[in-house]
């Protein structure tokens, strides 16, 4: 794997831990949906009410939103904006940084308040940071790899989809 382009892998037990942390958070905050998006724009987890939008597009825009705001923060002399809040008439979203690698996205409506969401997010971010830091340390000890045989089949699929 080339230097810098670090891969990381995500196991069943990571998923279970993240789902349980997010489920607790949703119960305590009365928010609708909790999502984890990585900074390169990939959806990692969705917990709670299934959103009606395209999660892939949503993840790429979330990462771009967060990155753009990061740059804005630097311009005004802040190292980062640890969290962002987008307020809508009915639906709102709150985004918080986790370990500088992933983003917690919370969707909520009038069933709760920004104050309660913010209050509960703080503890949740701490717990999630712990989980992700463990995952990244593990990732650093050996790059994520796919099993042998994957490549051959993948090449066939590429030919099929994009024309041989």
């Amino acid at each position, binding site marked *: 794997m080339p230097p810098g382009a670090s891969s990381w*892998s995500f196991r069943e037990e990571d998923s279970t831990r993240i789902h349980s942390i997010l489920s607790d958070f949703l119960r305590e905050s009365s928010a609708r949906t909790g999502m984890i998006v990585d900074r390169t*724009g990939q959806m990692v987890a969705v917990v709670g009410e299934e959103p009606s939008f395209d999660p892939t597009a949503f993840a790429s*825009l979330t990462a771009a939103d967060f990155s*753009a705001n990061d740059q804005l923060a630097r311009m005004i002399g802040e190292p980062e904006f640890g969290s962002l809040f987008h307020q809508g008439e009915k639906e709102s979203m709150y985004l918080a940084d986790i370990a500088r690698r992933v983003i917690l996205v919370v969707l909520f409506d009038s069933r709760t308040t920004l104050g309660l969401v913010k209050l509960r997010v703080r503890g949740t971010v701490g717990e999630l940071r712990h989980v992700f830091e463990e995952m990244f340390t593990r990732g650093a000890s050996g790059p994520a790899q796919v099993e042998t045989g994957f490549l051959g089949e993948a090449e066939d699929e590429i030919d099929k989809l994009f024309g041989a």
Partner: protein
Amino acid sequence: MSMINYASREINCKLVYYGPGLGGKTTNLEFVYNKVSPNSRGKLISLATETERTLFFDFLPVDLGTIRGFKTRFHLYTVPGQVYYNASRKLILKGVDGVVFVADSQIERMEANIESMQNLYDNMAQHGYNLTTIPFLIQYNKRDLPNAATIRELQAALNPGWPVEDAVRQKQAPDPYHEGEFLVEQLDGQWVERAPYFEAVAMTGEGVFDTLKAVSKLVLKSLGS
């Protein structure tokens, strides 16, 4: 940064189309969007200005299907080509797995191509990535125009090759896409390697899928290595 998610059994790879403004990056994505079966692709998202110039990026997810139990997906991004959007360009490169440089073949755009290529090297370096070790290829677009420079001129300006220091890699490697040409070769006693290149007319789709196929395969190969 390809992500392998063992829990949901997904592999996602990020491909970025880079290059000077109005070179055809968005046109590449639009062609892919229009030709790939709707079951295999998501929505094409364009953050563009009112005059359809890319402001932040275009984004198109393409599903390769399930391979050995893993749902494999490519995320295709373009960057805004205009010089003053560098901050956005740099952001899009974060976590990139493969880069396609879309050069504008028109002789008048040579300067813009060179400037954009330099900018790509700089931005990759600032992320700590090395363009000579990640999947990278060049597409010479607009080959149909009468004022297109020759491939030889474009190669000399944009793809002259980088030195190969590793003795193991110092052996002639033929270019699988161009007979009689080499990706690694010895020139004046110095071993050099070049990025693979493709000729294209993105407006009609010529070369678009050849480019995408080649970079996708290189990216998957880098996952397995």
